[in-house]
């Protein structure tokens, strides 16, 4: 059985091919302004990389901000459900899954069968999403990829007053003017963002094990800040966390075959 999961996100469109429960191909391309174009391209690419034709696909599951643009989806998968399925797929012990993407943050509490017990969503405020760190990287004039590594070099605690991205930008510029190290500023940024996601996790309850999905999971500075804030030994993260929701969509599609 072959299913495809497409996650059309605010920043990137991720697509995976699942064959009998194994991921055999995945692609990620920028969504840009034309969601449909990105979706078509992404699907074409992933099929090519899997070495299969569209006819061989049993079902397609769609999810993400651009779900309405995924015309070829047989199954429309709610993001919360996709997260729960994916968290359970990667780590069977997962009871709390946090998905932090470019423009949204979500937390879901699940049982051992990947059923959703409770959840919390932030899709209204950029302060609790990847966009926060991205904007701060711009203010610091540091590559987004370097931000996390920089934060890990600091052990200072500088509280950030501003919550809003717009105000935090000014605050970061103020810290730069006060000759604060980039490492320390970067850590302050990650701590601030982590505390926002953690407060969302606390709302649904901290249940072990905690799994992180979404592109922000690739940022070691953020993951470490989360771990510290949650007071846990480890946060479980799949190798390529940004494909979490797409994998979840493919899993749900497989259930409908």
């Amino acid at each position, binding site marked *: 059985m072959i299913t495809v999961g497409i996650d059309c996100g605010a920043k990137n469109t991720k697509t995976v091919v699942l064959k009998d429960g194994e991921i055999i191909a995945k692609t990620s391309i920028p969504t840009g302004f034309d969601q449909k174009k990105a979706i078509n391209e992404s699907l074409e690419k992933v099929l090519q990389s899997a070495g299969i034709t569209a006819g061989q696909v049993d079902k397609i599951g769609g999810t993400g901000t651009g779900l309405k643009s995924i015309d070829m989806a047989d199954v429309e998968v709610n993001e919360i459900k996709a997260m729960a399925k994916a968290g359970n797929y990667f780590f069977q012990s997962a009871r709390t899954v946090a998905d932090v993407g470019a423009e949204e943050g979500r937390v879901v509490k699940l049982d051992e069968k990947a059923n959703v017990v409770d959840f919390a969503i932030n899709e*209204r405020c950029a302060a609790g999403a990847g966009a926060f760190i991205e904007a701060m990287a711009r203010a610091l004039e540091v590559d987004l990829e370097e931000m996390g590594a920089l934060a890990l070099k600091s052990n200072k605690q500088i509280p950030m007053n501003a919550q809003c991205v717009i105000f935090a930008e000014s605050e970061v510029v103020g810290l730069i003017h006060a000759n604060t190290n980039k490492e320390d500023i970067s850590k302050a940024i990650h701590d601030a963002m982590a505390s926002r996601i953690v407060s969302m996790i606390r709302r649904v309850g901290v249940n072990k094990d905690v799994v992180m999905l979404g592109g922000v999971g690739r940022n070691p500075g953020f993951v470490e800040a989360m771990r510290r804030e949650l007071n846990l030994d480890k946060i479980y993260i799949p190798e390529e966390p940004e494909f979490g929701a797409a994998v979840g969509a493919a899993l749900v599609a497989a259930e409908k075959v």
Partner: protein
Amino acid sequence: MPEGKKQEFWRWDESNWKDPDIDWKDAKYITVGIDVGSVSSQAVIMTDGQIYAYANMRTGFDSPNSARNVLNFALKATDMPEERMDYCVGTGYGRVNVPFADRSITEIACHARGANFIYGPEVRTVLDVGGQDIKAMQCDEKGKVTNFLMNDKCAAGTGRGMEVFADLLGIPITEVGERSFQIDEEPPAVSNTCVVYAKSEATGLLRKGWSTEQVLAAYCRAMAERIYSLVERMGVIPEFAITGGMAKNRGVIDRLMAKIGLDPMKTKWDTQIAGAVGAALFGYALCLKGKGRKK
């Protein structure tokens, strides 16, 4: 503009002013109010409770320096030596960082007191839309606050949010209001509250073929709605007055007032100085009570 430097559309003119009809030498008490906001700072010099001179500047990265600079700028409009100042009150976001102030008073109290002065004692509801927060206050005929609500966590609906938008669209901030009415039909408001997301939404609308003016109208409407929700929660008692920089943006204010269903009060004064006026008036009241600086 120097080559290689990006034009800053958010930038508004800094100014200072002096009343030519007042001679500071005639005054018994000279009091100063310094309002160090997150985005702008004002200094107001009062002679026996009358506005003698003021300055309005952009806040720098360091509050004590901004306070000093804006006082110097106000003094520059006059020939008065700084030593003549009897009492100084600091207010605003950076009020505890005004090194030469005799005391600090919250901006809520100062804005209501200042609005009472620049708009008149009939004012009962004051809306202050500043760089970083939105405050709605109810006050009595003396400008004493009886109730207030404040939003200071989010840039939506604030002056800073508008500056970011002006920069994005490449429209000088002072032209935003007028330009937002150069449309055939009022578009629906931008649906995202968060300024970061509203920026992406606006870029999307431009790509769809909307004119800059239409996008401005949609954003001004969204800001008006955001501000309205705060005002509505507190309740409006006429007369209604607006202070802060946003009072100068008709794109937002006309749309807001249409929702409230009132005409805002008018003033000849710069609406940004209300907080500093209130601060200077508190200083004057203290001097009158004999609680001024010990000499």
